[in-house]
């Protein structure tokens, strides 16, 4: 087991109008893991990430990043939202979107300069999108848009990366490219947390996994807990209940 804890979640509960979406989640994520969050639709996977990042306000519970509240640790955290959460017809270029990753460290009012632009170009290079830097973002394919989002997070140069379904709707080439980058991040000692849907690739891509279905079912190394028992606990029972209803 690794010693240092990257993210510690304590009694986290989130509800939309009385219906709990996340119920009393206790979760510690060790530093340096590449972790998948898996669970059926509506299990609260995206909500968990959003609650950690303060996008959604939980009704109870606390989250710490390396021992301190998130709002003191923003610069250590990068976020890749779901691709569908923005309007890709927005009048801007690929490079411009990646530059947005530098806005957090710039703070209010200050504009990105040469250093930021250089960092953004490097990030574009890493995701193989440098030739498309001046493209209007609507003229990029879904996979390319996803890579742009990834580059925007890379430019934040964070310690912890949260990614909401980065593999959704991308082709095999892009999926390989993304997972390679994630593995490079892990090698560099970063912590990467990914909402993931494809159960088959979990053992191949990740070394840590959290099963989630409103409650936390299990969390730990893939080799130890990625088994039928937990899969049934997360997906099967819920499925049976919904059939019985």
């Amino acid at each position, binding site marked *: 087991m690794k010693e240092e804890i990257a993210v510690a979640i304590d009694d986290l509960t989130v509800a939309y109008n009385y219906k709990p979406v996340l119920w009393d989640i206790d979760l510690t994520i060790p530093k340096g893991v590449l972790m998948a969050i898996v669970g059926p639709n509506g299990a609260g996977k995206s909500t968990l990430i959003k609650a950690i990042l303060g996008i959604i306000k939980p009704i109870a519970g606390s989250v710490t990043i390396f021992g301190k509240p998130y*709002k003191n640790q923003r610069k250590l955290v990068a976020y890749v939202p779901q691709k569908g959460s923005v309007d890709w017809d927005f*009048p801007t270029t690929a490079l411009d979107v990646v530059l*947005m990753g530098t806005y957090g460290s710039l703070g209010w*009012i200050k504009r990105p300069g040469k250093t930021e632009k250089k960092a953004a170009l490097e990030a574009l290079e890493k995701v193989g999108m440098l030739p498309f830097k001046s493209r209007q973002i609507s003229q990029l394919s879904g996979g390319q848009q996803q890579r742009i989002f990834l580059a925007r997070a890379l430019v934040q140069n964070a310690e912890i990366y949260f990614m909401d379904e980065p593999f959704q709707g991308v082709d095999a080439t892009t999926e390989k490219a993304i997972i390679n980058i994630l593995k490079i991040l892990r090698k560099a000692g970063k912590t990467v947390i990914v909402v993931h849907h494809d159960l088959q690739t979990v053992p191949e891509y990740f070394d840590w996994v959290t099963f989630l279905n409103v409650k936390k079912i299990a969390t730990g190394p893939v080799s130890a807990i990625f088994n039928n028992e937990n899969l049934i606990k997360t997906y099967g029972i819920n499925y049976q209940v919904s059939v019985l209803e």
Partner: protein
Amino acid sequence: MTISEYIELLFNDYTLRTITLGTAILGAVCGMLGSFAVLRKQSLLGDAISHAALPGIAVAFLITGAKDSNTLLLGALISGLLGAFWIKSIITKTHLKSDTALGLILSLFFGVGMLLLTFIQKQPNANQAGLDKYLFGQAATLLEKDVWFMAIVTSVCLGVLLLFWKEFKLLLFDPDYTKTLGFNIKFLDTLITSFIVAAIILGLQTVGVVLMSAMLLAPAAAARQWTNSLAIMVALAATFGAFSGVIGTGISASYPNLSTGPVIVLVASVFVIVSFIFSPGRGLLFKEIRFRKNRNDLKLHKTLSFMYDIAKNHDDISHPHTVKILNNFQGYTKKSLHKLEKENLIVLIGSNWSLTEEGFFKAKNLYNQHIETND
């Protein structure tokens, strides 16, 4: 009156100059802020806010009894802001979608406003006449101090916009991400909304409650067609708005009985229509031209690659083949054969065709290209 006479008049006539300046500034500020409303998908917010301003005007008149435009517009500002933030809280606190919330507030406030207006009109007070000008606006009532006020508000808007440009852009594109980076999106949102309300209130006297939202949306929608850069879009929208004001005022001043507000809105709509049709990237005309050209090119390419498939089986690539052989393939016409010949890709001799070397290599690479684009 010719255009040059009109321009001369514009410089000499004090009233006309005031009104033209006023509508130009109004158009510019509306175009600028309208871009933000359009990109935030809050196009109807402007409509709701302008309608929500009406009861404010009526109440301000009832309380003060004055018809001074500053007092009435202060009332409009208060009820416009009330309407705007009411809409926002309905959206965040209930299950209602934004269009429902907008519709509700718009009709509620407008209904109350109309009720009060009719009530005021029944009062035995000579002063009441003319309040209904806020429905459709009356540019002729613009005074120099109104124009100064507009100019100041516009400068403040522009200054704040430039100052927080980076933050606004981020908020428009990706609000959740903006939040994770630590920016206070409530502050930014309140700032934008307040400016939009301010711009609308500025326009009530000139364009009126009913048509005001067009001043926000039309220049922005037109500008979006011409550019893929936010900065250029905002600048273009401001320019379109300003020209709508100037041209609209000119038209309405040149003919009797043409109300300025509606004419300005119509001119702005012309900008929209022209942009939708003629803009090079997104315009309908060029889209159609590109579509036809691509379709014709593809047809030619298909014919060419069919010829290539036949020719590649021969040692001599320029071995002549009869045109009849192409009958197996539907995509050729005399015209397309001649076009291929004109492009030096094939040679036609009598009823025979043969590929030129250029044609052969073009066809070969064509195939590779199609594979690559599919990747």
